[in-house]
């Protein structure tokens, strides 16, 4: 009981969500708790409330994104905010304007929240130092993608009831993945044991120092796991000589029924999308409604982002 009381008393005075590394256990609990209430709301016939009425949310996406951007857009709209998505392809950035200048321009329009995705690690941190509003990181370089990790956590909690004590394997291109990093921090924080599985060329230096067990043998890495998180493998990785071919990758690191046998019988399959069927995951497994929670992840993504917008939106 004491714990719950403590959680209720939590006040989040920090206005930015830059990464899982920067938030606390109690903040995470608050986000999950709020998100749960929004799951119900999102299933009801009237999905719109007015918590953020009068607030302006700007989505500033420097990298192409379909699901994250639309998820944030929907989340903002359902909370009653005015949402504007910046199309960077045609903007001044392409004409040589720096991130800070863009930030100052946007700041002059008095937004309440900026949701940013940027190809450079640390870009949201820089932005947050220069604007008066809340900054939410929607993915920066290979550093963090906090809302993805939070929605993954919510999905697991929804299915398994908890995260503490679970064994979670994150498989694939760990080196270039912000999803992997955010999930490593979050799942560790919530008490899971985390394995990462990747060929050596796609494992970041000193990854064990982040509190994970690293495996290059997928079967060993999946042994006894409750959750199997697959990551997207970008085709460019073949050119950079990280891997010889998609065929070789699939043979050793693709999720197949055979390899999945090593995990627990009731293990869940997750994927942040978009998927490369036949490269990192067997197409039938991806669609197996008993094992795969990939579509549920997308659904809960909206709820988690609503919770984040609500909690981190700067109060006047």
């Amino acid at each position, binding site marked *: 009981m004491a714990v719950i009381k403590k959680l209720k008393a939590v006040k989040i005075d920090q206005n930015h969500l830059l990464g899982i*590394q920067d938030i606390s256990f109690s903040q995470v609990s608050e986000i999950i708790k709020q998100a749960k209430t929004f799951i119900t709301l999102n299933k009801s016939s009237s999905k719109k409330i007015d918590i953020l009425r009068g607030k302006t949310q700007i989505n500033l996406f420097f990298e192409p994104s379909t699901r994250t951007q639309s998820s944030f857009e929907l989340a903002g709209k359902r909370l009653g905010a005015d949402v504007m998505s910046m199309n960077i392809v045609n903007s001044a950035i392409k004409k040589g304007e*720096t*991130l*800070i200048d863009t930030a100052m321009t946007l700041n002059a329009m008095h937004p309440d929240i900026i949701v940013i995705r*940027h190809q*450079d*690690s*640390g*870009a949201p*941190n*820089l932005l947050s130092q220069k604007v008066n509003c809340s900054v939410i990181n929607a993915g*920066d*370089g*290979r*550093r*963090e993608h906090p809302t993805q990790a939070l929605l993954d956590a919510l999905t697991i909690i929804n299915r398994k009831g908890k995260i503490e004590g679970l064994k979670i394997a994150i498989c694939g291109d760990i080196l270039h993945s*912000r999803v992997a*990093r955010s999930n490593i921090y979050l799942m560790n924080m919530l008490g899971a044991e985390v394995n990462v599985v990747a060929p050596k060329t796609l494992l*970041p*230096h*000193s*990854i064990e*120092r*982040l509190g994970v067990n690293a495996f290059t043998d997928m079967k060993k890495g999946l042994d006894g796991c409750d959750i199997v998180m697959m990551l997207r493998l970008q085709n460019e990785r073949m050119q950079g000589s990280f891997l010889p071919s998609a065929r070789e990758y699939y043979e050793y690191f693709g999720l197949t029924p055979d390899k999945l046998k090593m995990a627990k019988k009731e293990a869940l399959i997750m994927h942040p999308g978009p998927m490369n069927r036949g490269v990192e995951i067997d197409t039938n497994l991806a669609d197996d409604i008993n094992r795969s929670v990939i579509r549920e992840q997308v659904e809960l993504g909206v709820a988690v982002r609503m919770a984040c917008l609500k909690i981190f939106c700067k109060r006047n």
Partner: protein
Amino acid sequence: MKEKYLINARIIDPGNDMDEIGGLIIDSKGLIKAVGKKVSNGNLPAKVDKIDLKKQVLIPGIVDMRVFVGEPGYEYKENFRTLSDAALSGGVTSVVSMPNTLPAIDNVSMVDFLKRRGRDKSKINIFPAATLTKNAEGRQMTEFGLLKRKGIIAFTDGVKTIQDPQVMTRIMSFASQSNSLIMQHAQDNILSDGGLINEGEISTRLGLKGIPFLAEKIIVERDLSFLEEYFCRYHISQISSEKTITVIEKAKNEGKIFTTGVSINNLSLNENDIGDFKTFLKLSPPLRTENDRKALVKAINNGVIDVIVSDHKPEDEESKRLTFSQAATGATGVETLLPLALELYHNKSIKLKKLIQAITSNPAKILGIDKGSLGKGKDADLCIFDINKPWIVDKNKLKSKSKNTPIEKRKLQGQVFKTFVKGELAYERI
């Protein structure tokens, strides 16, 4: 010029193995007339004006082997006047200017320009370096003989490394003809491609692409192999990792003749200082681990590394107020070289004599210039500092035109009070 009498100083001159309380007489031509304990109040005529240094430390003017000026092409970052002011306030009286300007210092006519600007605008001694290759592109070598005759003291592509092994062997064998000094910035381009900071836990956490220590080590190993076949005056500008030290130590033990430098940044800071994407700590070579830093300190103590440089690289604020990957590389440092080095003395990491040696007599010896020590008849280039004076670095008070100091707000102990160049009092802290 009147003769000047400096008395009651602690004179440290590692080049002459001197560390004693004494004085120094500057003659009417600005040369050192006498130095040491015999120059005392009692031994001097009573009527002359004496400057009592009150036990402050007097060392030869500092020789900084790696300084970027900005002229020509980047005057908005630093010009000769601002560089001179910055250097003098840090006790630096001689600098080797890097050739990465716009246009690059790669031909004889540029040298005349540099010498003229250096003479007219600065009070310090400017020893210009030229590029090893045209426009520092790593392909066509520059005119070592002609450039040297014009007054070029050393050859380096500065921020760049000669990647092509064949070009490097030819540079080494051709340079030996004119007895030219080659200074290599050791970093393999392919291994460090896209790299921003040391490869390790911090790069993994920050999501920044790493620069592996191997990028430095293999260039050093390669060049030292070449040196066996193509002997020349060879100097590694700066090293950053423990593994490279091992290679250098082994080569020196085998009797190979070459020298090595290190930036004060790599001796005093490590990758953890980058914190939350501080672009002022984006450096080349990158800051590495605490273990690497400790190994570098040890290498100064046992003489494996010969020289400490400031690697003074002024960058305007606009070049640094960007995301980490877009921000310019480099930090200012010429005016904080000595105080930051003294931190290593105060925390008992490095003996004072070794420290002073690495910024005075050793660089002078490598460059082959008559600086960096206090012999009779030499130019009276002097640096006088209070070894214990505490102060806090404030970028707005620094004299360099650019404010990209990597040690903003750092508490330091030791500050320069007077700097003489050729017998003239060129700087005095009031």
